[in-house]
């Protein structure tokens, strides 16, 4: 890790005045060596710094900013989640558990208990992909400014099957998968201290649009809160994740389903796949297939198959198709179990 200075910000203004770069910018070749970036719990940032990928000159600690770890629920207005909330606090919160089941499930299954005690919501959404070529200093990859995606023809067991271009990395954030399914909004404070509210699905950026970043965040912009719409009356949700281990693993595949039901009939559903594509992947095909259907083994299976219709696996990850089909089917069936 490089030498850096440390500034523990006491106010939003002070923090924003300091910061002049996003962490993603520091990963590109030829960046200035005076980059100043935000650090929440630092789990993702320090990983990148220890590997020598990011070498900021100064870190601005935002964990102690007042008010950024608030959580509020109102059955009319919905849920407000401060960016500094830890995953552990989200996992144990009863309003989340009762009204946004899938979010509770994702927050409590992410990482390990000690990581969840530290990791923040904002940092989780702004973390970078886990692609092992991207994460390694030895591989100067497409996303870090070269012309080569090593994973495209290399070791790609964990990589994308849907919605990718040349870069085949998958998005790392489980919370993003779920929050996208809930149609959450991200409230961002711009460097000019204006507020910007964007739907979660517009928050993420495909590498085909801009390969150097994964979110729309510009230097100095700060996620202040996440807003979830009030839970619909007959809306249920479910989240499923699988991997090779239960401890510690990022998902090999994950699915979040939010559906409005009448009885066992699905009025409409949002189905989002994580670890499938470079951004949380909203499966319109699955959503169309299950709309206005009674959810049962055969309709759930049909929706799952529809979701994978356009999947184009790489050399080592065809298995993901089966796994996603399973998770989509099971998540739908869980809603009516």
């Amino acid at each position, binding site marked *: 890790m490089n030498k850096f200075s440390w500034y523990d910000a006491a106010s939003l203004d002070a923090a924003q005045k300091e910061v002049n770069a996003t962490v993603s910018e520091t990963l590109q070749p030829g960046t200035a060596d005076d980059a100043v970036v935000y650090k929440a719990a630092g789990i993702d940032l320090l990983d990148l710094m220890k590997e020598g990928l990011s070498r900021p000159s100064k870190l601005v600690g935002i964990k102690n900013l007042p008010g950024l770890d608030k959580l509020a629920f109102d059955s009319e207005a919905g849920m407000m989640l401060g960016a500094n909330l830890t995953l552990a606090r989200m996992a144990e919160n009863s309003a989340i558990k009762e009204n946004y089941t899938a979010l509770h499930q994702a927050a409590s299954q992410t990482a390990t208990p000690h990581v969840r005690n530290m990791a923040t919501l904002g940092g989780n959404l702004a973390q970078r992909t886990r692609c092992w070529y991207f994460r390694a200093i030895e591989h100067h990859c497409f996303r870090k400014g070269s012309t080569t995606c090593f994973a495209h023809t290399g070791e790609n067991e964990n990589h994308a099957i849907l919605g990718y271009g040349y870069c085949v990395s998958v998005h790392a954030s489980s919370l993003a998968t779920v929050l996208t399914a809930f149609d959450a909004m991200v409230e961002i404070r711009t460097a000019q201290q204006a507020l910007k509210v964007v739907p979660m699905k517009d928050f993420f950026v495909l590498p085909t649009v801009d390969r150097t970043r994964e979110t729309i965040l510009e230097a100095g912009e700060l996620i202040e809160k996440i807003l979830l719409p009030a839970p619909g009356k007959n809306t249920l949700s479910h989240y499923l994740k699988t991997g090779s281990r239960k401890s510690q*693993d990022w998902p090999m595949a994950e699915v979040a389903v939010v559906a409005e039901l009448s009885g066992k009939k699905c009025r409409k559903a949002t189905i989002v796949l994580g670890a499938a594509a470079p951004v949380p992947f909203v499966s319109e095909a699955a959503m169309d297939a299950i709309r206005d259907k009674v959810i049962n083994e055969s309709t759930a299976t049909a929706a799952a198959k529809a979701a994978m219709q356009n999947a184009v696996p790489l050399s080592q990850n065809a298995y993901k198709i089966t796994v996603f089909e399973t998770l989509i089917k099971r998540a739908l069936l869980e809603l009516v179990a």
Partner: protein
Amino acid sequence: MPHGIPDYNLATVEREVPATEPPAWEVNDKLKVVGKRIKRTDALAKVTGTAVFTADVQLPGMLYGKMFRAGIPHAKIKSIDVSAAQNYPGVFAVHVLEEMIEGANPKSGEKSSRYPDIKYAGQPIAGLAAVSADVAEEAIRLIKVEYEALDFVVDLDEARKPGAPVVFATDVDQEASDGGEDIEQGLKSSGNVRGPSTRSFYGGPRGDLEKGFAEAELIIERTYRTQVQTHCPLETHGVVVDYNQGDVTVFASTQSTKNTRNDFAKAFGLPKSRVRVISEYTGGGFGAKHALGNFGVMAGHLSKISGRPVKLMLDRKEEHISAGNRPNSVQFMKLGAKKDGMLTALKQLSYGTAGVGLGAGVGRIAQAMYDCPNFKTGQYDVFTNAGPGAAFRAPGNVQGAFALEQLIDELAVELDMDPLALREKIDKSMIRKVERERGARRFGWTHKKAGSDKGPVKKGIGVAQAHWPRIVNLDSTVEVRVMRDGAVEVRSAVQDIGTGTKTVLAQVVAEELGLQTEDVTVLIGDTLFPIGPSSGGSIVTGAITPAARNAAYKMKQKLFELAAEKLETDAGNILLEAGTFALKNDAEKKISFKDLLRRMRVEQLTETASRSDDYGGFMVGTIGHGELGSVQFAEVSVDTETGFVQVERMVAAHSCGRPINIGQIESQINGGIIMGIAYALYEDRVIDKSTGHQLNPNIDQYKMPFSFEVPDIQIELIEDYGGRSSTDASGIGEPANIATAPAVANAIYNAIGVRIYDLPITPAKIIAALNNAKNKNDE
């Protein structure tokens, strides 16, 4: 001496015992301290953090060393420029390595250029020492190396092809490490392929394969593959060297104080007596820490140049890429059998790569475990541009067992036999017979048809066996001291790598002197003390505890003389029990251990003793009773729609001669099983074929097991007396690890009805295999 297995065939055997060694102990039941569940003497120090590992050592004026490593996998070095690093503020010494002491080396020893050729990505080139780890890290970035890049190969199959880039242009050799896989010397190479090795200490081929296969009523041919596994000890490799003008002290995280000293003396042309190696605590080893290593040589030079102590600990990435690994393998197996299960022929052909090292054989388990009159093996080493392999917990045998024990399972399936019953028929080992019986009872084994569960999540059961030879090492000497204040001290250079060596030494001496474990202070891990064996080959307990008992026994004789004087009788009339010397026929005439010592004429008495040859002669070349067998049973559940495997339960039946400390043995078995599960399901070093760099040199994407991955483990520990030494103890570390992966693999087959031939058994492979099977059925 007691001989055999209690409740089965316990008898008495006569042995000729050297005059200086004690009479036989009775079976554990009759002993006070040995064979019990004794808390580790250093448990408190470890959990409270007062135990000082090498990583914790701080010396006045100490500098921090760091290595510069090759950025490409195969190259000649054109030039090295260290000037900027040299001039960086806070840097005290820079050194460029002149030779590689790890891995294989050409016999000639001649060099093609000034610097060693680069043969793997991450090979050390240079190093420096600076005032802090941070400064060292900044400065190391300033070293510039110009390479002439060469074609490279990192894949086992690619490396075997004609025309593949060649790693070593001439024949090479390498000495096997202590407890490491055999390395047959002088074998020839063709391209990257060296061998085959066809012999072991059990001998060469036996019988006539062709005849054996002609007699067979059933022939099974299968190919098995195992992956590269890295050691991942909690404490990485490292040293603190204080060169001190040639009166050297080396603190080392090592499995061998002896080898570390010898390597250092050799590298620096010093007499062994001027190199002191200290390893009071070592944070795990698993076979990769038997030598000084390039990093140790580097630290030596940096300390010599700077005139200050230098600490050099590898980081986790360096640990993965350069500090050793279990070589991978592809094993072509052919088995002939009669319809009743009797084996007629077994042929084994294997290739494995230890990167730029040797020792990628698949062990002797296929040769030794079953009754099969016709056997032949050919084991090839294949060179690739990857970090050198090292001994790794039951080297070779873990790979070999995965193939052999699945093959036997397949034979049982073909014959429609219970795999346990088949083994009963073809396995002559008495200890494994008992282990099968006791293990099966504990497990509740009833043969189950493969893939018979309904629903997507299926349970399966599997069994596998292990063989490990009993090995000892005569570099095993212990000094026992008693002091006037009653202190009893045990000293040996042997190290404790977390297995509990300190505690077993205290127990054995306490038992002999009629004391309790806590009455004995154990000082080990220092070459100033009498020589100890390396911690490898499951040698230590069987090698060092007899030396300790022998020394304590000699001390006891001295104390008897002293007590006889005080009690006015002959030494032969005295008993020592529960801390008291008393007359055999008059218990009232007595003196306590402490009182006796208080009345010594001198401040301290010292006795030293060594391990002698096995009573009755070493068993090399023979198998059967007395080996370190084991039988493990696994129950798994497999989600056939996600490929997720959970090992639910393991029953492990083991033997290790006379058990000394039940708790510590169980810890070893637990650890062996957890490591075996990780080998079966998770761990896999992945190197990119186009760049030659490891993609997962961390403990995130290199998947280790954590708490959810640990099953319910039940242990059946069987006493197995052989009358081989004054303690009759043996090791357990390696046998604990061998049978697990095949037991799990067999259980997965039993659950899903499809066999996976390739480790680790990941969800991806399970799904692919099931989809394949389904497509075949649909056709």
